[in-house]
């Protein structure tokens, strides 16, 4: 990792990868919330 003249390496490709992670995580957290909600409902029901 040698020192280079400043030129952003945060390319569109990297931005897309981060965006994808953010989307997947959002979906994953949503699924977990639904899981706990249904678990709670089952217990109450």
């Amino acid at each position: 990792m040698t020192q280079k003249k400043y030129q952003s390496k945060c390319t569109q490709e990297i931005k897309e990868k981060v965006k994808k992670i953010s989307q997947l995580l959002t979906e994953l957290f949503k699924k977990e919330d639904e899981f706990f909600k249904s678990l709670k409902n089952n217990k109450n029901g």
Partner: protein
Amino acid sequence: MGESVDALRIEPFTHTRKELGLEFLDPDLLRAQAGSQDPQQADEARKKLLALWDLPEERDAKNAETKDLLQQFEQFSEEEKKLILENLAGLQLTEGCNGGCYFCLFGTKKGVIAKYSFSSIRAFLEKYGSKMNQQMVFYWDSDPFDYRDIDEQENLHTFVDVYKVFRQKQQETCHYVSTSIPRGSTNDFIQFMLYAFDEDKLRQQQGKNPILTVRISWAKHNVQRVEATIIKLKQTLINKGYSEEEVDNFFERCLISGCRFENDLKKIGPLINQHNNMLDIETPACRDGILIRPNSIDTIMMTAPTIYEPSGQKSIPLSPGQIDLIPLYLSRLDYEGYDQNSSTLRFKSRLMLPPIRKAADPNQELTLPNQKEDIVLKLGRETYTLGRLRDDIANFLDYYYQHLGKVTLTQGEIFFQEIANSFRERQKYTQQQIEKARRYLSTNPQEAEKIEYYILLAQVYLSEMDLLATLIERNFFITTVVMVANGLKKIGKNEVAQLPTAIESLIKISEIVSNKELSEDEKRKQIEELSPQAEVIVSKIFDLTNPDTNKNWWTFLI
């Protein structure tokens, strides 16, 4: 579970107990007070003894159902027995436990419900003890000091008796014991430690290294009992004529302490419903292998701790005739990213956990009979090993500063390249498992929901590692890669929408900071020009709250 492990000292117990506002309790004094003529004093003492020391009869192992270990084991064929012994992860002496740890990975128990007869343990160890995997332990979902059995001659046997028979068969094997010193077991623990002291003293005289490590697991619920027990152990040894220095030396050689307080606890096991970020991929369930326990003989395998498998351990009962379900023994500790003992970075081949292998044929992957269960396990395993790789990156700077002078950033760069290469080699296999899993989605809704969850989980970790590997391959600065890995680890559901801005800002800030052509003022100016929110978001997401670093936190990236 999320513990810090240190050499054992009495002071931290005392200090923590005081901080928690708990009084020092001496069980011998309490017993005397329990017999007091003052009814109030007697009542208070009895209550304290019952809460921390005394065990109700029905919870005591000696009154639990007795099973025959040898009979249980002999059901298997000769070949199966050989493989079970060679790949043995644990021989659990009891079902149930009196530790009362609310965070126990496998759930809290209300006492011991079954145990092996001592005669069957002795017969088993005499016959097979020397053939057992040397890394096996005498506990798993249990505490070894709960073990008690009364034989036909009315003799009481405890863990120290099991250990003595074991030592006859494995004299030079390093053995590991973990305990919370359960209620009803303080005297058994002390008796064991007195034996261990003699064993270690002899070894010291012979110039040999210790062969026993006892870890005391402690938290708020048992700190008073642990403190009082260790003080009593120390006093007992001093009363026997040993010097304080000799006792401390023994503690130093053989005892470690693992404290488990709220902030250290991983949100897995019974705490999984508190989990709201991607921090907790590591679990104390750290082996593939066989677990022999009074109620069954199980195949145990490491996977990711999830809402469906909160312990991070897939466990299935093993029956005779299922030789292909015996896994090849594997300990996670052999696959750590960093080797804390030797201060060296591990080799590439040790970075990622391999898929679970068959003990009967290590070239073949172990496959569960139920295909849907099998694919869930495989995705869980991939998630687990990818998550650990991410954490290896995230933890690198901690390791670097701990071993300053011994580990260089150049070594770190090579290590990161190896991580990226290992991931690229594995990436295709993980993707294949995801594709395979999709074929099972047209199954019943409940099963499909679980498979969908695991596909998503594996995709998250695959994408995270893909990003980190890309940053490494594009020669981003080590500090940037480490910061991004930490961000991915810490991201919670409330911050996930800000992740793209945070990572983009972080990368740009670290690039500006690392530009040696810019003066400090120019760097500050360029960072401020990025976006008024960039620094704030990055600080928040990456949890940079240290008052010393909060202002211009990025300077440490230089």
